[in-house]
């Protein structure tokens, strides 16, 4: 801290975000009935007060600020032009500008939680609509439209399963996104929950092993599909095994775009879906804010965490929406709440609502199909080249390939303005040499031909 005696004097700098002038503040102090600012601060023991003044950079004008941040931003890659071949829980899909125009409306982004429904119908109806979208994508009846992200939604879904089953052991697929797995660990750690790993083979969870791992103490089986390698799991079969042992099934959907093409989780007898909606209109933003959701059967509604909207009527019978089943929440139930969650990622509800409305029934399907086609096209091309090896498994828009020389590939790609795929050894030492490719609709066929050529041909 800088030493200075005259702080209150100095704080008289004019600031465009603070309307009241010094003169007004003095008038107000008088009307309050105190002689000085100091009198209002009298409860603060001088021992805990700042002696000097904070040691921060001098205030910047707006233009100085802009120059500073532009300059910093240029220390990043020109990411718009670098299409990522990496996904792994963060997917670059196209985001219609209409979505951005919508969430730039101050009424959406400068408001807060709809505590007062009469002047928050915009947010509330949007929550309700989005709950409907997710319900129609998953087949589930109850949808919590915003948990921070897919990882925390997964952790919350596990806690929910523990509460429902009153058991304290869970089986987690090794192909659950490693960050999600870690988050589940963090959240369950205080409860000393036993976590059993469900091993994998051939790009999918080893379902046979599940038979032997699941027992009557198992609260739930957590299975991600498409899994971290992009593999499409036979969730129904997993549900059958789990349910036989009285365990719930939590399906994690880290790439929600897959819901455009794959069966309803409900149809697979899943009990709780924990999803990440980033693909529905959110930019990558270096990893956040994304938006998690939890969807489940009606019978679990009182154990679900987080805020939901429900339809009701006003005194004249006019339809309106409110936050509902609030008795689960921390502001009412405190330590007995289903979760501590308060602020969530609400603005991204509007984002995904707008996104899914624009894409609609047909569009979402077509994009999902494009993703599948494009990913398989690249996969086939790369294998054809003979430079890569693979095991074969059904996948959505991500796949792994064994690459002889990861760093060469990375260099070739970055030199040609593509962000390289993920080295799987980062998370799976046994997958040394394997890379996880992600291909979405931002890649044209021309792009993929170029990449296939680059990695499969020229490069030695």
């Amino acid at each position, binding site marked *: 801290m800088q030493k200075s005696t005259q702080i209150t004097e100095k704080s008289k700098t004019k600031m465009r975000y603070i309307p009241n002038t010094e003169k007004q503040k003095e008038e107000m102090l008088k009307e309050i*009935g105190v002689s000085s600012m100091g009198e209002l601060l009298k409860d603060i023991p001088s021992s805990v007060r700042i002696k000097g003044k904070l040691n921060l950079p001098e205030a910047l004008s707006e233009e100085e600020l802009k120059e500073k941040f532009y300059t910093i931003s240029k*220390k990043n890659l020109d990411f718009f032009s670098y299409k990522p071949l990496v996904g792994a829980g963060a997917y670059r899909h196209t985001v219609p500008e209409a979505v951005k125009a919508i969430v730039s409306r101050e009424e959406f982004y400068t408001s807060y939680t709809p505590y007062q429904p009469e002047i928050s119908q915009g947010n509330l109806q949007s929550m309700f609509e989005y709950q409907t979208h997710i319900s129609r994508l998953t087949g589930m009846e109850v949808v919590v439209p915003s948990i921070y992200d897919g990882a925390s939604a997964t952790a919350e879904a596990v806690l929910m399963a523990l509460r429902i089953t009153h058991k304290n052991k869970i089986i987690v697929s090794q192909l659950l996104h490693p960050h999600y797995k870690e988050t589940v660990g963090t959240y369950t750690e205080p409860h000393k929950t036993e976590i059993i790993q469900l091993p994998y083979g051939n790009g999918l969870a080893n379902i046979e092993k599940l038979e032997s791992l699941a027992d009557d103490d198992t609260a739930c089986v957590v299975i991600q599909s498409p899994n971290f390698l992009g593999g499409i799991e036979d969730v129904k079969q997993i549900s059958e095994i789990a349910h036989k042992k009285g365990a719930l099934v939590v399906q994690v959907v880290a790439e929600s775009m897959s819901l455009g093409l794959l069966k309803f989780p409900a149809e697979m007898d899943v009990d709780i879906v924990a999803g990440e909606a980033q693909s529905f209109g959110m930019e990558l933003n*270096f990893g956040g804010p994304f938006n998690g959701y939890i969807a489940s059967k009606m019978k679990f509604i009182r154990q679900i965490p987080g805020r939901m909207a429900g339809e009701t009527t006003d005194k004249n019978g006019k339809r309106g929406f409110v936050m509902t089943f609030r008795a689960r929440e921390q502001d009412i139930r405190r330590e007995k709440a289903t979760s501590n969650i308060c602020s969530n990622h609400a603005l991204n509800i509007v984002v995904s609502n707008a996104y899914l409305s624009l894409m609609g029934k047909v569009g979402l399907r077509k994009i999902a199909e494009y993703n599948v086609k494009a990913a398989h096209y690249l996969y086939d091309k790369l294998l054809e080249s003979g430079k890569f090896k693979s095991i074969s498994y059904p996948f959505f828009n991500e796949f792994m390939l064994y690459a002889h020389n990861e760093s060469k590939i990375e260099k070739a790609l970055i030199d040609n303005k593509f962000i390289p795929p993920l080295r799987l050894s980062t998370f799976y030492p046994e997958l040394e040499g394997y890379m996880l490719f992600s291909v979405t609709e931002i890649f044209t066929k021309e792009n993929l031909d170029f990449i296939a050529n680059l990695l499969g041909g020229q490069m030695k």
Partner: protein
Amino acid sequence: MKTIYEKSVKNRTGYSLPKDYFSEENISNIIPGYAFSSKEKELPEVSEVDVIRHFTKLSKLNYGVDDGLYPLGSCTMKYNPKINEKLANLDNFIYAHPFAAEDYVQGSLQIMYELEKALKEITGMVRFTMMPAAGAHGELTGVLIIKKYFEDKGKPRHKMLIPDSAHGTNPASSAMAGFKAIEVKSDERGGVNINELEKLMDEDTAGLMLTNPNTVGLFDENIEKITEIVHSKGGFLYYDGANLNALLGIVRPGDAGFDVVHLNLHKTFSTPHGGGGPGAGVIGVKEELEEFLPSPIVGFDNKRYFFEDPKKSIGRVRAFYANFPVILKAYAWILSLGADGLRNAAETSIINANYVLAKLKKYYKPAYDRTCMHECVLTGREYKEYGVKTLDIAKRLMDYGFHPPTIYFPHFEPYAEETIMIEPTESESKETLNQFIEAMIKIAQEAKTQPEILNEAPHNTPVGRLDEVAAVRNPKLTFKGQLWSLKKLKQQ
């Protein structure tokens, strides 16, 4: 108004797709039968025009800070500078992939590093994690850190003290972290009851979660005593930073003895509330807790920014590093104000709250009759005898064009019942406050003379008072329409 589903028209289009030059291979040959859905999912079919108009209409049913006073106590609804929105939307930031190599995201890392540096100075803490997505998320992270500390020492503790005036997230977070939440009563001055604290604090107690100024808007005068008591038993003092706005440049929680601090960047640091989020609940700690922070955090060797892993990390609490744009906006705000500006913000917020208190205390008895910090807590008790609830007062305020304050929080006996918690922030001008005060006084009069106007309020809003009980009794959580049911779809 109609839902987007009620605007759907078969075959209408709102999307555009890149040209699909891939072979006409049948997708059902690629996707295994156990997972392949033969049908499209029943989303609406609307055009871009429909969508823009729908959401424009929806937006106009909302009320935001840009529409006027939004005095929600404990929420610090301050102005959200437009330049910060712009900067957070720079292409090189928004398209940055979290798995891009460190060398490609030096700019993003620099922002995180520099914000941390500024927050360390502002709070007096030693190290921060940017990971928590909101205040409550930060609380969970913070108490998990404390928990792990004791476990690491081989002496796990099981209780956490929480004042009765605390926000609901405090006990909820403690419970999630496996602590037994123990309530500490407030005293007649509005602070922590020191005697009780002394009794409750023991060596199985991990610490105390304190909001200061607390939720009745008062600075706890006994802070030094509190610190001493908690520290003397080896406990930690957790700072709920929701109310830091009052203390910017005046008090650093670290100096006041706090060991863990969460900041709500979406409150104190001006990042917008987004209709309920995303915000950020960053956590700062003192030295002895540093090695327990969630991994990774950002380091700098004077040339290059990089991620590093705290040695005994509690682990991740989410998938990636931070709500990056929130981080950026908070930093932009700090840079725009500088040290003097921050202090100016704090002082002005305190003056504004006291001004409202001074003008309204005749009409709405304050929970405690003292000057306050950045928010004041009044009550609506006196109007009960006229059949007017505090809720009615809040609803009536909407008719006068204002967002109501926080009501019924804090709630604890005997001081804080029927509470009206008003936090004007430094963004409000005297003129706006005067208008608000005038409306509140009018409502006080109406309460006595025409209580039914209040009971029936609001009158000028897009919908009238909504039946929340019916919403639970007959839950309608999704739009059904005539056609849609999962069962039907499966049968088709």
